[in-house]
């Protein structure tokens, strides 16, 4: 049995959940006594990263890790559940879940045989705005891994038996959403944060109903639209010779056709005080609380500063609610950055009234207190560690590079993020706290008899946008 002390870092703000959204980055320690993200370090990383194009326009980025015999390849597909009409949103997850099952020339048994024989870690996943397929292997098995991944991406089989198996597993996962309170409280608040018809809305009951209606024809059509060179990017992190790598990728993906497709614009969730609170009655000993609100998007000019704002908010919540008042084992805040930004704060607590009140105190402090520049610099330090942890494994680096490419069209954004963070100051943190920490939607799971709605509604009403 695992018993782990989960600090507020257990839900760090830099986790950008699904798919290929931009992930961990770190701050520069320029102003600090001991600097680790030097200009030389950034320049070296850039020098090891090259940008190329296949003949059909697919952007390929190679990042060299000299001396390593591990290889990670990741492909992103622009488009996710956001781009699919209401009532069919589960199609994305189902399609990407079914793709690795089998492909032309690779029936399920053959896929199993090869992945076991060569220990290939191959996955595909449908995300909110981008979806992806990836493979990790040792360079020695590149000639086996690439053709398999190519077939999976370009010619998935979607055999009835395979897709029904994936569908059944998805349904089991969806049903179990309600079993884990920490997971379920997210859905409780999402019901009001994403009203019916919102492009980002996902609900387990609705997804279950959708899956019943979707068929193989839907998968085939979806894949046909998804396989579009103009909406694909590839990143390879390895020590493979560049010339061979590019020739192999050209052969594998260079013939995929290209066509234009406009993405659906991201929408902030319209706020209504009448739909800002959701409660779920459950006989459990500790309350699960989560609040959600709009935040700057990944491409906003405030994207970097808001990351730091969430980091500081998380620290402040931890200091006040866990360290000083001992109200919660797990209290956190985090930001999700897509084309739409989302902020969240939450806690588990047997004293929900006091905890919600303390949350409000911390929010008030964030909006009114003037942090010193020294305080701000201290909060930046943790980003240095995260910056290099991102680069520790080939797969995490490939994912981070794809995130930078998807949203900024280049990898410089990732590498130079420490410099952008250097520029964030205390005044910006205060401004952003006032701008972001408003119009909250709050979800709670706890026994009905032990919770008063006004506790949550106070947090909402005291933080309405002016």
């Amino acid at each position, binding site marked *: 049995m695992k018993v782990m*002390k989960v600090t507020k870092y257990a839900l760090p703000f830099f986790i950008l959940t699904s798919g290929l959204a931009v992930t961990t980055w770190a701050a520069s320690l320029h102003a600090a006594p001991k600097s680790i993200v030097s200009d030389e370090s950034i320049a070296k990383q850039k020098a090891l990263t090259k940008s190329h194009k296949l003949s059909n326009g697919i952007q390929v980025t190679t990042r060299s890790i000299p001396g390593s015999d591990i290889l990670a390849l990741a492909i992103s597909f622009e488009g996710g559940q956001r781009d699919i009409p209401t009532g069919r949103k589960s199609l994305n997850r189902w399609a990407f879940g079914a793709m690795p099952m089998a492909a032309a020339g690779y029936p399920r048994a053959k896929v199993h045989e090869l992945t076991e024989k060569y220990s290939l870690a191959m996955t595909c996943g449908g995300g909110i705005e981008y979806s992806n397929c990836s493979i990790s292997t040792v360079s020695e098995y590149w000639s086996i891994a690439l053709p398999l991944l190519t077939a999976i991406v370009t010619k998935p089989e979607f055999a009835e038996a395979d897709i029904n198996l994936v569908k059944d597993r998805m349904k089991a996962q969806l049903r179990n959403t309600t079993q884990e309170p920490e997971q379920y409280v997210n859905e409780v608040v999402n019901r009001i944060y994403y009203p019916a018809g919102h492009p980002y809305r996902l609900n387990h009951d609705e997804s279950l109903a959708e899956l019943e209606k979707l068929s193989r024809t839907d998968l085939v059509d979806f894949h046909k639209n998804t396989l579009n060179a103009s909406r694909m990017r590839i990143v390879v992190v390895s020590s493979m010779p560049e010339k061979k790598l590019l020739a192999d990728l050209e052969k594998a993906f260079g013939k995929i056709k290209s066509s234009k497709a406009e993405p659906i614009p991201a929408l902030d969730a319209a706020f209504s005080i009448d739909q800002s609170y959701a409660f779920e009655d459950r006989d459990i000993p500790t309350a699960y609380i989560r609040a959600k609100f709009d935040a700057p998007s990944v491409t906003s000019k405030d994207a970097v500063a808001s990351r730091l704002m969430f980091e500081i908010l998380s620290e402040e919540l931890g200091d006040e609610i866990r360290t000083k008042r001992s109200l919660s084992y797990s209290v956190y805040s985090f930001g999700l950055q897509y084309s739409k930004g989302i902020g969240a704060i939450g806690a588990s607590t047997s004293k929900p009234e006091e905890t919600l009140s303390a949350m409000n105190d911390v929010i008030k402090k964030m909006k009114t207190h003037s942090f010193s520049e020294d305080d701000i610099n201290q909060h930046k330090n943790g980003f240095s560690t995260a910056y290099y942890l991102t680069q*520790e494994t080939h797969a995490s680096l490939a994912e981070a590079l794809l995130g930078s490419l998807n949203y900024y069209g280049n990898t410089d954004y990732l590498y130079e993020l420490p410099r952008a963070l250097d520029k964030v100051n205390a005044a910006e943190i205060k401004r952003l706290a006032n701008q972001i920490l408003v119009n909250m939607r709050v979800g709670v799971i706890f026994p009905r008899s032990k919770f008063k709605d006004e506790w949550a509604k106070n947090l909402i009403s005291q933080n309405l946008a002016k």
Partner: protein
Amino acid sequence: MMCSTRGFNRIFSSTLVAMGFSLLLIGAGKAPPTAETAKTTKAPGKSSAISFVSKKIDNGLEVVLMPSSKVPLVTIVLVAKAGAMTETREINGLTHLWEHMFFKGNARLPDQEAFNRRIRELGITYNGDTSAETVRYYFTMPAVHLDDGLQFMADAISTPLLEQTELEKERHVVLDEYDRNASHPSFDMRNLSRRIIYGDLDYRRDPLGQRPLIEKATREQLLRIRDEVFVPQNCALFVSGDFDVEKIMPMVAKHFSAWKAPKDWTPVKRPEFQPFPPTIEFVMTRPLVRDATIDITFDGPKARQSPEDTFAADFLINLLEHRSGKFYKKFDDSGLTFETDMSYHTQSEAGEISVVAKTKPENIAKVREALLAEINEWAKPDYFTKTQFDDVRRRLIIGHKFELNQLSSFIKSLGFWWSVTGLDYYAGYLNDMQKVDLKQVQGFVKKYLIGKPYVMTTLLSPEDAKAINLEDNSKPLVEKYLSDYKKVSQASLK
């Protein structure tokens, strides 16, 4: 995760974690003691060999080093052979509480606010965890802060204040952690299963402990735990990342050598567990459970007593996960279950082998019957193929490469192995796993599984149980075995 591999990852992830501690003040400015022993161990396995340096400083603290200049970070892990297994019933769960108190202030940093400030100054990503046999603390930070980080760890482990006021505060945090566990529908089932298997010594496998004991824990109890298990002879320091081996040892000695055990310290005595009980099966219903879970647990090998059997257990798990194999095809690939696995948690003093299946409630009877029948097939000559053995051996080597690709995580796993099996076991692990053959696997299945007693639990919702005419027969067992946990459950709902 994109680079997930089975084999090593699975084995490591099945384990848990640690702690550390000490007493007395740091001797400022003293010349560092010399290392008394030093050895370099190379784990075999083609190009996946790992190198680590193991030394001891003069207070008995073992220091294990894995340098790598891949990224300019260091990870510092402090591990203690402590947890539920070093507790008595009266203090069950308090090692975990102690682990929390580690963060609450020491001679240099008076309280947790100061502690947190220092965390920020050094850019540390940190955590700690407690399991039945291990407590670990781990910090990852920029390599330029190595010296400060070592001092930070040394202060926390050797000079904890354990103040009553801080204890009162942290008690509530730990109780909330307890309640989070109690909020899960499987909480009672896990407690009951543990009690049946381990009898009156079940607390020695339960690091979370008992709620009333946490509510009443005293500073004196924590001080006793400190003196019993958080001493240098019972701990080890692991450091990985971007550092110079020659330069780090003087730093370690400077910061950790003042940490001493009480005079005449001896390791905590650990009573033997009862023999595994006769076969028992029970069904438990709990609201909110969705799909059904069937768990069949057998007695397994203890790592320090039967290491060769632990290799066979790990190899068997890999064979069963092989997606061209009969087991995977019969259960997961056919859709009969959503997920079926065998697990074995490598431990020093206990060993449980579990076969767990998640399925639709209407399939419970079929899955139960199929699982019990299938286990009897595992010892037959044609159940596993030579190709599958070769694939598993290759997978273990490749999986190990991926483990080493994430050194900040791997070093924590190494700490686990030190605590539970000793590093010699680990150093030979990959090589020993390569030697496992069909005969050894068959022998393991016959020795531990075929015809052996087991505890089978089935967890599902009351509605599903009614729909398939399955009765919750756990209530008499709860009365017999879990009266104290029942009180706990009531207390937690107050």
